[in-house]
């Protein structure tokens, strides 16, 4: 016990313990630790750029009319400049960002498609990550806190799901959910594109977090601060959400961050299997399309989409690592 070693003199009534200038919550400590590595700011800014592009893609600035417009010849290779107003007297060459990454089969700008794809990638992975994290957290909390048959049921559920190889389950679910119509609350719903992918990814990926949460909650519910909260008459929901959840929340954050990476990658697999997004460009679809284009040595769409995924994944990975180091006390002191 470290407190036992505290010099007695320090523990006076006046509390002369050397306290820092500002109160240090564990979150603040974590932020401070993140702050010490300046590279983290690089990752964060790149992520911010991705997010910004995704947000712009929701506006008409990068809407369907932009990525869908024909900007050049079929499969024009990347070029810095291009001719505008062809065939008119005003024909001249100028810098054309739309041609920087070449064009696709329909003469559309690969760069614009790529930028728009950020929206799809981030939407899919954020929503799927939220879905998976919410399910995992809630079930983990319930199982760990209530124990008994609730725990038995949830443990059974996740052991079962865990026994089905993830890729099989995800593919089966994506296949089954694709374009399905169902009735709920007297209304017809149709799962097209993003919702069905989000569900397939989210519903199959919560097990890891749930198991982790359950273990942590089991540990925390035996801690004295929970007993103290009970003793002062705090209700179950207060104990779970004010006490246990904040103490396990770092797991959620780490899982959320790393979840996004795996979902961006999973979207490529689903696109390959024809279960991906349609009607709008996504990185997975672009890589899938590239399989044919490479027969003609059209590499730009492939390279662009791969690079986009690479950039996003690497920032999230490094930031996720940094977050894990900063938040997970178990790993503290290792790095």
């Amino acid at each position: 016990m470290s407190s036992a070693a505290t010099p007695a003199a320090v523990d006076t009534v006046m509390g002369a313990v050397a306290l820092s200038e500002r109160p240090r919550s564990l979150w603040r400590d974590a932020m401070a630790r993140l702050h010490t590595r300046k590279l983290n700011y690089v990752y964060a800014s790149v992520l911010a750029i991705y997010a910004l592009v995704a947000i712009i893609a929701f506006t008409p600035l990068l809407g369907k009319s932009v990525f869908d417009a024909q900007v050049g010849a079929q499969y024009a290779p990347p070029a810095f400049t291009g001719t505008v107003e062809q065939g008119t007297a005003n024909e001249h060459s100028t810098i054309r960002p739309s041609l920087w990454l070449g064009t696709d089969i329909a003469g559309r700008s690969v760069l614009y498609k790529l930028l728009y794809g950020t929206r799809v990638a981030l939407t899919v992975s954020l929503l799927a990550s939220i879905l998976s994290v919410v399910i995992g957290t809630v079930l983990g909390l319930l199982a760990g806190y209530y124990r008994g048959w609730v725990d038995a049921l949830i443990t059974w559920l996740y052991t079962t799901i865990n026994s089905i190889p993830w890729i099989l389950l995800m593919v089966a679910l994506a296949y089954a959910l694709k374009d399905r119509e169902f009735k709920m609350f007297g209304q017809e719903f149709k799962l097209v594109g993003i919702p069905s992918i989000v569900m397939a990814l989210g519903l199959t990926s919560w097990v890891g977090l749930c198991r982790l949460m359950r273990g942590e909650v089991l540990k925390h519910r035996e801690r004295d601060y929970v007993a103290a909260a009970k003793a002062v008459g705090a209700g179950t929901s207060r104990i779970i959400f004010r006490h246990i959840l904040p103490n396990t929340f770092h797991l959620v954050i780490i899982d959320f961050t790393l979840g996004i990476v795996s979902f961006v990658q999973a979207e490529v697999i689903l696109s390959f299997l024809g279960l991906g997004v349609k009607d709008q460009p996504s990185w997975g679809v672009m890589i899938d399309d590239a399989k044919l284009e490479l027969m003609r040595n059209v590499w730009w769409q492939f390279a662009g989409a791969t690079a986009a995924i690479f950039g996003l994944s690497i920032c999230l990975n490094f930031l996720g690592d940094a977050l894990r180091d900063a938040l997970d006390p178990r790993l503290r002191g290792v790095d």
Partner: protein
Amino acid sequence: MRKVKWIFFGYLAVVGALVVGIALSFASVSARDPDTLYIVYISDIKSLDPAEISDVPSSRIAGNLFECLYNYDYYKRPYELISELATALPEISKDGLEYTIHLRKGIHFYDPDGAVWPGKTGPEVKAKDFIYAWKRVLDFHLPNPNAAIFDAVVGADEWQKYTEDTKDESKIDWDRPIAGFEATDDYTIRIKLKEPFPQLVYALAHLPSAPMSREAVDKYKKKTRQHPVGTGPYSLSYNDHLQQQRILLKRNPIYRGGPMVDPGTPVAAKDRLPKMDRIQFEFFEEDLPPWYVFREGLFDYHGIPKDAYGQAIRTGTELTPELVKQGVTLVKEPEPSIYYYGFNMQDPLVGKNKSLRQAMCMAFNRDQFIATFRNGRGMRPVGPIVPGFPTFDPNLKNPYAEFNLEAALEKMKEAVRVNGGEPIPTIRLLLPGSDTTFRQMGDFVQRNMAQIGVTLDVDYTNWANFLEQVEKKKTAQFYQLGWNTDWPDEQNILQLFWSKNISEGGLNSSNYANAEFDKLYEQAKVMSDSPERRELYKKMQAIVNEDCPWMGMFYPMDFALQHRWLKNFKLVDYVHGWMANLEIDKELRKQGLPRG
């Protein structure tokens, strides 16, 4: 303590050995065999049992293993019937109801495994073998799609009914006669029809009509589809298509040397078929890897993958300079097929609004479509009758097959009027795939239709789901489909508009019903080829063109790339067993691809 370290090092040694083993395996890689033809297959095959075959990939392979009474000449265009197992074209009675066919003598079944007949050479092919095979085609229990070819035969329905009623397949009495099929002697078959069916002779050149040995089928039962026993120029040597990998065909040693040759007749060595000792088919599912393999010169020709039309070819029909340098040549042939977008005529919106259909047909820019997706490898369709057919007229005037935006907009006004003045609601286009090409095509049509104010909701699905919606539930509103003709006779395509073919799973998938068309169709159906019949066909096409149950996309053009060492390669339809004509210039192949 120490043990752990040794386990680790031991394990590393195993890994090292593994890597070395794999590296060593490269030493023993054998080159391509000079007497084997190597063909890449990108689609999978379903069966090698002729009765079950309805897909082109399967019939291309099975066509080398079986022969029919008739075949088409490999080299001649338009297609010309030749007699293969028959001695001559059938003798047809005056009323067109009775066919008499004589068989070549001395042709034997060949059993490459020697499992049915230890000596491998089977019994002589006789009339009963044909009748047995035809009964199988009509067997309810076989998942066969070819029963329709014998619809006109007397007793065919009864036989089908009988097989359906016999719940236990093994209880079927194969000796039970069908009135329409009669073996007057071992070498003569008489076929009786309920009504004239002039296409019967084509049906007898169709692979499902190939003779089958009952002994072989009894021996292999359900596995018949993997153990073909036929009379063709090749025999199956190694079949691993279940592993999706390769099928090896070997020369049939008792083959008589050519389709038109009688057994025992000597054939000059240079004319003798098959030319190559072996054919190896290698199966791939993805397009990119086999393309690379072909580019390495390991396949002798490469039918350009159906989803990658035009990828290999720069524009139109011109090869990329790289390919030209390597001595690759392009082979092309128009296909007797059509691709179209079908309207569901039972749909309350598109089915009841002819003006809407006509407007949509005129708003569809086919030339641009063909240029974009087919690289010009297709023709703008003028009607359902496809190129190569006697009544095909490429200069036919069909206003609804031409892109005309003004006229389309004009028609749209009418369409809105028909719709009660309401704007046209969103129309759902169903596409049987979701890969790149389908997505891009969907986009294209969507944009075309948007020009006349029709909003399309494009729905991509898999083939099974597609069929379910189009043919079973009939819920599809607007969908993409194609038709490959079975024989060069217009009836084969016009049957898709006959109202009697509207049924669950029936051929008339657009559910088109037109009394006048039906009358003409039923009239022409029983006629033999004649100027009058051609006239009827033209009239029927005009009716369909006016009604627009289809929005034609294109008549496809078949393309393939071949290496310079491959000889006698032609793209064909209908013909079976044509691969026996292919030959390799061994010297050239040995030299490999020109570097540069």
